[in-house]
């Protein structure tokens, strides 16, 4: 399948899951299990940075219109889309020829770096999201608990997804683009 179509399909699927499954789960009043931003973490290594930012913006804004919070998730997604290349740069070998696979995954990066990569971006996403949400309203202790709770549950979900649905990864070839 075409990469472009595949990513659109993934983002749409994850947003529908977020809106109609995860938002309906009443775990606790502090905790919403977030998973919708995972396709942004799965985008190809070679994607241009400006494109990455726009994809993040559109993903976040689509979810926002379902949840009636224009701009909230968009801001958080743009932030992780911006930070993503730096985190990948730190966690993987500098020589880009070391990338044997096209997109981040436990197989492409090894489990430990991949989990750290997901954890940093998840923490940033939730931290920023909850910060914006509580700017107008809330207390500091509540803020910390909410960030910790949502991050823990998101990490659990993402690792479960990675174990249950391993993606078929294509090798990066040198011949054709």
């Amino acid at each position, binding site marked *: 399948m075409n990469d472009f179509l595949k990513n659109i399909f993934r983002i749409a699927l994850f947003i529908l899951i977020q809106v109609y499954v995860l938002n309906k789960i*009443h775990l606790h009043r502090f905790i919403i299990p977030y998973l919708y931003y995972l396709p942004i973490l799965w985008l190809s290594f070679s994607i241009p*940075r400006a494109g990455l930012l726009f994809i993040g*913006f559109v993903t976040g804004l689509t979810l926002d219109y*379902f949840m*009636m919070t*224009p701009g909230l998730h968009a801001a958080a997604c*743009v932030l992780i889309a911006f930070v993503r290349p730096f985190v990948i740069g730190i966690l993987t070998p500098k020589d880009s020829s070391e990338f044997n696979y096209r997109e981040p995954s436990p197989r492409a990066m090894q489990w430990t770096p991949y989990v750290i990569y997901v954890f940093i971006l998840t923490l940033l996403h939730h931290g920023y999201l909850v910060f914006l949400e509580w700017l107008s309203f809330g207390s500091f202790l509540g803020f910390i608990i909410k960030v910790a709770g949502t991050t823990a549950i998101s990490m659990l979900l993402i690792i479960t997804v990675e174990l249950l649905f391993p993606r078929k990864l294509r090798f990066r070839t040198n011949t054709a683009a």
Partner: protein
Amino acid sequence: MRNIFLFLRRYRAFLVFIFLQVVSLWFLFSYNRFHRAKFLGIANEVTGRINAQYNTVEDFFSLKEENRKVHRYNDSLLNLLRRNFMMRDTSVETGNGLLPSDTGNKYRRYFLRPATVIYNTVTSQKNFIQINRGSSQGIKDNMAVISSDGSAVGVVINVSANFSQVMSLLHVQSTVSASLKKTGDLGTVEWDGKDPRYLIMKRVPKSADVKVGDAILTSPVSFNFPPGYMIGIVSDFKLDNTSGMYSLKLKTAANFYNLQQVHVIENLDYDEQVKLNQDTKRKIDDIKKTPR
């Protein structure tokens, strides 16, 4: 000049990042109390259609519970009818949406329309409900919404052609005027954003005789809600020493976790009442300005 272009090229990603952040935050903070966000009308129509599809599936699983509620509410309505019939010319009829006017004729003050909830959250700080009726089906902003068992749910804040958004009582900016059933003391019902099972009622005077288990109803001085619909039951109360007023904790009467059928209530006098209110304010301001 060349340096500027070099700078722009070098920090292109960063500038795009800043630009998108500013756009997002502008969306977020311009989304004010009256919720006139950019493109919201179109987005509402699109998400409404998807939500309606999803809801046909979800409805199926809660039919039984909903039937029970409808049956119970019908029952109470029948009781109301019989009572009205027997005491035709007493003030009981004000409770049924009719107010006696000066000429002795009754006129209709409130008009109810049924609607179905197609999307609803309780986990956010700002919860909204989407219903399958919009301006084409007679819904306007500021109409009150009650659940099928007659308890207050929220107020319509945005309308597209076929769908409406309702600001749930579980929204940190929601304020609804309320009164104690027993004594009639007035107060305001708000939400502190913490537990979706409980609401907070503020500014209840110290003189009110409050007990745990008292019923809280919509007040007779509200512009959107007709009086007498259930909001909640007092589960805890404490005296605020600084203001000398009670702050009550209410168990919500409506179950926000499984809302399905709702009634949208139109106050037919709403425009006139609001206009009178504004005119009075303006008049008083004018009097203050002119020296005497």
